[in-house]
Every structure is written in C-alpha cells, then in structure tokens.
C-alpha cells in the first residue's frame, strides 16, 4: 500500500498543470473586478469565499449592469450548479469522512479537484479513506494559493489597463475556451446550442433572467438527448 505522503504528492503533481490555466483566469478576474469598481480586498474575499471563476465573472458582469441582487445570486448559483454534481460524484468515495473533513472537502470541490480525484479513485479502488482525502487535498494544494494570489495580482494591475485593451471581451473568449473542450458528446453539443438559442430568443426578458431560463432549457435538452441515446444504446 502506498504511503499517504506519496499519494498526497501524486495529487499535487496532478493538480500542478492547472496552474497554467488558473494564473491567467484568476488574474483576469482581479482585473475585471477592479474595472467594475471592487478594491483588492473585495476581489480577494470574493475569490476566497466563492472559489468558482465562472460564477464570480457572472456576478461581477451582472452587478455592473445594475441587475437586482436576487437575480445576480440566482444567475451565479445557476452557473455553479455543476458543483452539486461534483459533490454527488465524490460522495461514494468521501461520504464516510467525519463531518469537518467533509466540509473541508466541500470547500475545495472545484472543477480540477473533482476531475482528478474521481479519475484517481476509479484507478485505485484499494485506497482507504485517508488516502483518498490525501490525494484530494494534494490536487487542491497548488490550485488554491494560485487562485487567490493571482486574483490579488490582477486586482493590483486592474486600474492601469486602458480601455483599448477591450477587456470586456475577455469573459466571452475565456468561457468559449472553457466550454468547447467539454463538448464531447452529441448531448453536450445539443445542450450548448439549445442554451445559446434560448438565450438569444429571451434577451427581451428583464434583468438577464433569460440567461437563467436558457440555462435550464439547455440542461433539459442535454439530459433528454442523453436519455434517448442510452435507450438506443448509442451512449458511451
């Protein structure tokens, strides 16, 4: 049986490459947050409490459009619904931990810790609970300081960036870049297309409510196509 220490290191090695993506992403958040009027502390606290870039960008974008608080919350939390899926996927492996440890794992549940850990747990069914948690925290170790640190770097840079840099378009490009590699199946592509079509048709709704409805429509389309593909035996 591998030692917990060596498994923790394996986790760190699995998490390290994500630094390449997180550095520009968190820097960009810091920059956009200061452009929207947040100071360094506010940007940092937001990154530390929310720990989810897409939801943070969504919230800042909607707040600059002066959308009511409840709608901002609903939109950002809809973006973050996938965290519930990660939580569900991790439950069979980490559900037996003590309550404080489960709370700790929940705080560190992000795209990268989820993806690496579930893959590793499937490959190593012999790992006991503390080894599983060790790996999970290993993946989180390079990611979290990087996320927080570069939010601060971006927030410090923020004010010095001129309008001609067209930073307004950094969010669309970043989201396109994040989503396209996820479009692995027909169901994923259909969900994305349905989300886009519904969102464009619903722009007349006030307060960007169309985005929330469009998101749920896209999710329903993806889930339904998956269900039909499973019935036909074409789901892999």
């Amino acid at each position, binding site marked *: 049986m591998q030692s917990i220490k060596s498994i923790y290191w394996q986790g760190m090695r699995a998490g390290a490459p994500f630094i390449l993506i997180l550095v520009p992403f968190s820097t960009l958040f810091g920059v956009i947050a200061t452009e929207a009027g947040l100071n360094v502390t506010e940007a940092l606290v937001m990154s530390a409490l929310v720990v989810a870039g897409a939801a943070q960008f969504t919230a800042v974008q909607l707040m600059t459009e002066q959308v009511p608080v409840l709608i901002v*919350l609903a939109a950002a939390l809809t973006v973050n619904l996938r965290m519930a899926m990660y939580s569900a996927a991790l439950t069979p492996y980490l559900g037996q931990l003590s309550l404080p440890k*489960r*709370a700790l794992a929940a*705080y560190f549940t992000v795209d990268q810790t989820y993806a690496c850990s579930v893959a590793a747990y499937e490959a190593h069914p012999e790992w006991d609970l503390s080894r599983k948690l060790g790996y999970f925290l290993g993946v989180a170790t390079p990611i979290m300081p990087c996320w927080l640190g570069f939010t601060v770097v971006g927030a410090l840079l923020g004010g010095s960036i001129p309008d001609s840099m067209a930073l307004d378009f950094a969010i*669309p*490009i970043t989201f396109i870049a994040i989503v396209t590699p996820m*479009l692995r199946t027909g169901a994923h592509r259909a969900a994305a297309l349905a989300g*886009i079509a519904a969102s464009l048709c619903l722009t007349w709704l006030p307060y960007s409510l169309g985005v929330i409805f*469009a*998101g749920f429509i896209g999710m329903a389309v993806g889930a339904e196509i998956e269900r039909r593909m499973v019935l036909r035996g074409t789901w892999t």
Partner: protein
Amino acid sequence: MIDKTTLWTVIAGIGIGSFALRFAFLGLVGDRPLPGWLLRHLRYTAVAVLPALIAPLVLWPPATGGEPDPPRLLAALVALGVGLLTRSVLGAILAGGITLYAGLTLFG
C-alpha cells in the same frame, strides 16, 4: 459603480450558496444513492449555462453600444474553432485574444 451593500450581499450570498451546493450531497446525503434524472440534468449545467450567458455578449457587445462588432465576432469564432480542434483551453484563449487585437487594429 456597484453599490457596496449590493456587493457584499452578493459576495456573501454566492459564497454561502456555492458552499451549500458543494456540501449538498457530500455532507448531507452521505452515501445514499441519488436519482438518475437529477445527475443527468446536473451533468449539462456548464455546457448549457456558460454559452447562454455569453451568446448575447458576443452578438451585441455592451462595449460597442449593442452593435455587432466584426473583431469581437471573429475572435469568438476563432476561440470556438481552436477549442473544438485542439481541446486546449489555453490555446483557445490565446487564439481568440490574438484575433481580437488583430481585428481591433485592422478594423478599429
């Protein structure tokens, strides 16, 4: 300008809400099985919501007063194409960014 009360309400609300979403199953459900239909819907959250969020920003950017803007449209298309072909997040961001600045320089 964002009102400070609004800002802190939003930060606290999303912070608590996001933790609740992460803790929902791991913390409260423990190791009981979950209904398949729920997981099936949650699987498509990111691919449905994120494109829905940016589609209007790509076609009608607020920075140009809602007028469709060739450099921004082109940058979005290039990021999409590179993302689909290479599956590289960083590659798609770089290609989109370079296209945007090239476009703004040429058309601007």
